[in-house]
């Protein structure tokens, strides 16, 4: 990507681009306590980021306390959860003012609110763990390629290019279908298809860093290369990793929901947001709540991680403030 004005290649939510923090900027960032304090102060003042953090907090709480918050067992199919004609029941708050099924029921007569609350668990676990895996792979490949130079550099970055040519969702679909869907397989597959973007960003930064004085000095003093990499270079990558660790979750929540929507996500009876939409979509005209509420949950979750991720990027790198 030598030709693009590099600071534009910022990674944004949901769609992989490169570079959360510009390599140029990384040069003047010294990760220290005061830097982190400053960052935290800037973040505190960013109302959008704080909104994102609060929303994430609420979603995490909903996931942890789902058993307490849910009015019902999310897999229990209630007799009164279907109408006489076998249709899903609309919100009982609206129909008779009771709290029986606050958001209505699904086509099997299960409580939708309980299923959405429990569904937060799948989305968050997959989103966070798959992204942790992707960031780990991406950081490893990007930093090794950038720091050790050829031939590793060419091999690893060409491999990254090849992986990037595969459409993300299509590749994930194929791998999940071949390996048989389960939550751990989905985490593994999303991690394996999503690391490429992170590898590119990290690589770009490490290439810029490897010529810097403190790195050259460390090498000149005879430190082993691995020591220089872990002690001098990796700390410089922390801001990028933090930003990607947040924004990438948004993307991975979207990928998980998409796979579940296609029926190759977490398997029933475990509720997942994409799966609820898939099961309810044939009712989209007569029972639109089956599509609307789980979709809102997906959107708000992704939105929250995007808000916080944007805010973190601005806070960690003030020169970019207000640009996106």
């Amino acid at each position, binding site marked *: 990507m030598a030709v693009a004005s590099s600071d534009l290649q910022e990674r944004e939510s949901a769609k992989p681009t490169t570079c959360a923090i510009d390599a140029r900027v990384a040069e003047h960032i010294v990760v220290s306590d005061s830097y982190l304090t400053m960052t935290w102060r800037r973040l505190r003042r960013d109302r959008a980021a704080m909104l994102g953090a609060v929303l994430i907090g609420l979603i995490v709480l909903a996931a942890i306390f789902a058993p307490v918050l849910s009015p019902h067992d999310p897999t229990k199919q209630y007799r009164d959860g279907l109408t006489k*004609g076998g249709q899903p029941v609309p919100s009982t708050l609206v129909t008779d003012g009771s709290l029986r099924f606050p958001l209505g029921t699904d086509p099997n007569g299960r409580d939708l609110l309980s299923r959405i609350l429990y569904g937060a668990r799948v989305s968050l676990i997959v989103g966070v763990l798959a992204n942790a895996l992707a960031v780990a792979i991406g950081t490893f490949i990007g930093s090794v390629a950038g720091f050790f130079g050829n031939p590793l550099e060419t091999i690893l970055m060409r491999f990254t290019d090849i992986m990037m040519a595969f459409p993300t969702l299509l590749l994930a679909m194929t791998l999940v279908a071949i390996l048989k869907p389960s939550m751990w397989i989905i985490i593994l597959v999303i991690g394996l298809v999503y690391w490429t973007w992170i590898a590119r960003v990290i690589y770009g930064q490490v290439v810029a860093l490897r010529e810097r004085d403190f790195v050259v000095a460390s090498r000149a003093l005879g430190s082993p290369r691995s020591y220089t990499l872990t002690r001098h270079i990796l700390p410089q990558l922390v801001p990028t990793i933090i930003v990607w660790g947040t924004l990438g979750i948004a993307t991975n929540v979207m990928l998980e929901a998409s796979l579940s929507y296609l029926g190759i996500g977490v398997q029933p009876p475990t509720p997942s947001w994409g799966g609820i939409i898939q099961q309810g979509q044939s009712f989209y005209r007569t029972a639109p709540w089956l599509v609307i509420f789980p979709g809102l949950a997906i959107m708000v979750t992704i939105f929250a991680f995007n808000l916080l991720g944007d805010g973190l990027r601005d806070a960690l790198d003030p020169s970019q403030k207000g640009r996106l």
Partner: protein
Amino acid sequence: MSVIPSTSYEGLPYLDQVKIEVGVEPDVALLRLETGEIHLMGDPPPGAEWTRISNDPAWQDRIEIQPQVSTIYIAINVTWPPFDNVLVRRALNHAIDKERIIQLLNGRGTVANQILPPLMPGYDPDYKGYDYNPEKAKALLAEAGYPDGFETSIECIAVEPQPKLCESFQEDLAQIGIKLTINTLAAPNVIDDAGNGRTPLTWSGGLAWIQDYPDPDDFYGPILGCDSNVPGGWNWSRYCNKELHAKAMELLTITDREKRLQGYKELFRALMDDAVWVPIFNGVYTVAHSEKLRGEATLTHPEHSLRYETMWLEQ
């Protein structure tokens, strides 16, 4: 696709041409029926809309409801442990809440307690079958040596409403400690796997079994007899009882109707004792059409074939 009648035949048909469109989703087809774009739906009206249209007076003479000579069932692969144990198979029969399935089908079906459907000669109105009784099911599992249940799987086709029904089985079996995995596949894959003994349980919804010929043998020979227990055969229970099979072969040769039907009653009771299936429901065939379309009293035959030659459009 267009069907144009042959000119060499007098009288029937009344229609000059029939245009058949394939690959239209049922909910889209229903809306097009409402707007008058089409005259007849090939699929039954979708479950999400059925309650609305069946309760709407304006629809009364535009939908036809016909009992279908069919039994829809869970085939239990008797060669697959632990289903090689008849107690486990009987436990399954007590565990499924069939009323719930009828409700999930918007009432388009009746609970089945035996292999033959009520409209088939040989149907045994005195047979009571297995009642819905999770406690008894649990006791049977314990007796069979599975007090804590076990894990198993069922194959279902990926067409509504089948996955929903399988989720209902999943919930029912969870109550007696059986952890059921649902494998949702396309119809040819389910038929392949079930016909080659690659799945412990098979949900026949959307696939089988609707009568081919009005004789009780149709519910034994092709789907439970030894001759159909071959690779690729429709004997999804992978069941072959030599003794019963000999009796069934004998029944084919009996000409006395009463004696023969009595023989079938005994045969099917024995099969139910062996619990080779969980019979779930007998189907109801529904079809929606425009008010202009008229034809044979019901437009359909019990074998769910549409008889275009008997239809006409009112101007």
